Structures are given as structure tokens and as C-alpha cells.
């Protein structure tokens, strides 16, 4: 008890909440030792302090406060009562399940439809790309045909007969125009060997000069042979002859075989 005496005079102030930190900590440490007498004294002191509430003048809160409180309390009471009345199984109504199911089906359909549309769009894009390529090719062919026609029909064009190795075989004819280019044409021309092309050469007049490589092509399935050279040597005057050899795919920088057709430039 002697130990308690030093704390007893703190108990009322502790219950009042007026003790400073050090004294409060000391008293709480003592209470934590399990001193029943002091604990009981604190509990009674709290009651005594609570009586001080009566020294505050009573005052009536506004009716609005009670209205707000009762509104909140009634709403919470109703919210708590509802789950007890309604069976758990029917808590989610059938129409809501049906709605969820419909939404799920719609979502799956939408995903499938979106994927289908995506595939269709991709296929359409592929087709458009092919068509565009074909159109560009057609335009190139048309431009080439126009140019060929212009070369063939222009009065300033010069025809050069290109004789074949075999006098009995098919012949080629070259039509040269000083600005538009050269067209080499022939019918019933056989296909070159596998992995080979026909390549045109310009044979210079200058002795010892190397033949100048030019365009490559194949005859079509009907044996029709057309070769357009849009950029012939600036001056055909330096060219002695035109020759066509059979070269490996991709052409050669210099002829590797004996010319199949040769035509002299006059």
C-alpha cells in the first residue's frame, strides 16, 4: 500500500485526463502491475468525473438533428431487415440472372463477330493489295505497249533484221528509234534452256570493245517475243550490231554463249 500512496493522489486527475505525460505513464505502469485497489479507485474516479457533465447547462438540439438521425436510423434498420425477409436463393431475381445471361451471350457473339469482321477486313485488304499490284502491272504493260506502238509506227524508226543461227529457224526484228528506244520482236521463238534468259547486247564498232549488256526477257507461252529497250545507247552510231544470247537467270556482264540472233546496224 505504501507504494500505492504516491499514485493515489494522481488518480482523480488521471480520470479527468489532466495528468501530464510523465505522471500518466507512471500511473499506467503501476496499474499494469495489476494493483486492484488502484484500478478500482480509477474506475470510481471516472464515474465521479463523468458527473461533471451535469455542470454543463442542458440545451436542446435542433429538431433537424433528430430528424436527420431518425432518417438515418430508419433507413439502416430497413436495410438490415430486408435480407432477413428475403430468402437467400431469391436475393438475385430471375430477370437479373436472365439479363446477365443475355449480356454474356451478347458479349460472346460480339467477340466472335468482331473477329470475323477483322478476318474479312484483312482478306479484303489482301485482295486490294493484289488488285493494286495487278493494276500497276497493267499500267506498266499499257505504257510499254504504247511506247512499243509509238516506236513501231514512227516513220523515223529503223528496222533491223536479226538473223538466227539457224537460217530455217525463227527470225527477230529490231525497230530502233533515236529517242523512244528499241523494240525487238519475233514469233514462234523457243524458250531458252532451264534457268536461262535471252539477253540483248550492243556490239560496239570500236575494235576490241566489249559488248554492252542490255535487257533480258523470255518469249510467252505462244512463242511471242517482245523486248523493249527504253534507254538504248545515246548514239546508236557507235553500235555495229545487236545480238541476243542465252544467259543464266539474272543476266551476265558479258556474253557467255554464242549469239542466237544477230542484226547489223547500218
Amino acid at each position, binding site marked *: 500500500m505504501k507504494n500505492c500512496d504516491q499514485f493515489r493522489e494522481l488518480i482523480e486527475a488521471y480520470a479527468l485526463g489532466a495528468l501530464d505525460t510523465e505522471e500518466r505513464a507512471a500511473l499506467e505502469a503501476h496499474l499494469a502491475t495489476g494493483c486492484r485497489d488502484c484500478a478500482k479507485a480509477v474506475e470510481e474516479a471516472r464515474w465521479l468525473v463523468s458527473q*461533471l457533465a451535469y455542470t454543463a447547462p442542458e440545451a436542446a438540439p435542433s429538431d433537424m438533428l433528430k430528424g436527420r438521425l431518425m432518417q438515418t436510423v430508419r433507413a439502416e434498420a430497413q436495410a438490415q431487415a430486408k435480407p432477413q425477409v428475403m430468402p437467400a436463393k431469391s436475393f438475385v431475381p430471375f430477370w437479373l440472372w436472365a439479363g446477365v445471361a443475355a449480356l454474356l451471350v451478347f458479349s460472346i457473339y460480339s467477340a466472335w463477330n468482331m473477329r470475323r469482321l477483322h478476318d474479312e477486313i484483312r482478306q479484303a485488304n489482301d485482295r486490294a493489295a493484289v488488285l493494286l499490284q495487278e493494276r500497276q502491272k497493267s499500267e506498266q504493260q499499257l505504257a510499254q505497249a504504247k511506247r512499243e506502238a509509238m516506236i513501231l509506227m514512227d516513220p523515223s524508226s529503223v528496222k533491223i533484221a536479226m538473223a538466227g543461227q539457224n537460217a530455217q529457224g525463227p527470225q527477230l526484228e529490231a525497230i530502233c528509234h533515236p529517242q523512244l528506244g528499241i523494240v525487238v520482236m519475233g514469233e514462234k521463238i523457243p524458250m531458252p534452256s532451264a534457268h536461262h534468259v535471252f539477253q540483248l547486247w550492243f556490239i560496239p564498232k570500236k575494235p576490241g570493245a566489249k559488248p554492252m549488256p542490255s535487257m533480258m526477257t523470255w518469249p510467252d507461252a505462244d512463242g511471242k517475243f517482245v523486248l523493249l529497250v527504253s534507254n538504248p545507247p545515246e548514239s546508236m552510231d557507235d553500235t555495229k550490231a545487236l545480238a541476243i544470247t542465252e544467259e543464266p537467270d539474272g543476266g551476265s556482264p558479258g556474253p557467255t554463249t554464242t549469239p542466237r540472233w544477230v542484226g547489223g546496224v547500218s
Partner: protein
Amino acid sequence: MLLAAFTSSGAREVSPDATLLSGLLQKDVSAFEQLYDRHSRLVYGLVLRILQQASTSEEVVQDVFLQLWRNAAQYDASRGPFVPWLCTMARNRALDHLRLKSERQRRREDIPDELPSVVIAPEYEKALDEKRRAERVRALMASLSPQQKKAIELAYFEGLSHSEIAATLKEPLGTVKSWIRNGLLRLKEGLQATT
């Protein structure tokens, strides 16, 4: 257990508050309304005395009664009689608001727990009913010296500590401690004397 908490030992009838609190556990709105009607004036008066502002005081009173409604089941009968418990909770809430408002740099530990601690009504509590005891408390406080009364009020209504009261009143710390202790002891003796 709850009912027993509000039945004074030796009393033959269950207190009205005990009956109403029993209804509160069943979420009886009517019981809550009656409890509010019985104690709102005391609680609001206490909070208004602390905060000195009607609108903030009503917010605090609303919080206190909503906590009572929502957490009635958490009420521990061993915490003691209902009205002191309710007043202690209201005071704590109001002082919290006061401290936030004034941004006083006191440590949170200095504030009593939000849920009131154990309160034991002494034997002499039964000597007077609530109304007469309230009158007796007011009379006893009025009989204290002005310094004692002022020091106790600063602690109870403004939540000041010994040293803060000493600084406020510009009095020695030991003097303030004596005023508060002697004032409370006189209040206690005055209530005991009614038995």
C-alpha cells in the same frame, strides 16, 4: 448481462435505459428514439459547452448517437452505467474536435480512449436519482473556490493538462494540482454525504 448492468444492485426494477438498450440490440427504432429523447439535452449541452458552436456540436452529437445505434452490441456492460458511459463518449468526441480545431500539439495519448474505459458507480450513486444528483453536483461545484472550479472546468471542458492549466492561469503547477485534486475530493465527499 446488459440488463444487469443497468440494474442497481438492490434495486428491484430494471432501469428504463436498460430496457431501451435491450430494444436497441434488436434494432428497435422506437427504443433508439426514446433514448435520444431522454439524453440528447444532457449530451448536447455537454458538447456545446466544450465546443461553443451549435453546428459543430450537433455534428458531434449525431456521431455519438449513431455510434450508439450502430455499435450497441459492442457495449460492454462491465463498462458501467449507461449515462456516464454516454457522457464520457460525448466528451471524448467533442475534445477530439476541439483539438483538431485548435491544432493543439498535444499527443493523442493524452486523450482518453474513444470507447470509454471502465466506469464503476460507487455505492453512494444509488442515494439520489439522476435529476437530484445532477442538482447536487451543480451545487457542489458552485461551492468550490473560483480557482478550484476554474481549474477543473479547464481540464474537463477544454481537455487541458495540469501544466497547460498552470500556464493558462499563470499559477504554479503544484497549486493547480492541489486545486484540481482537492476540488474533486470535495465533490466526491459531497456526493457521499447524501447517503
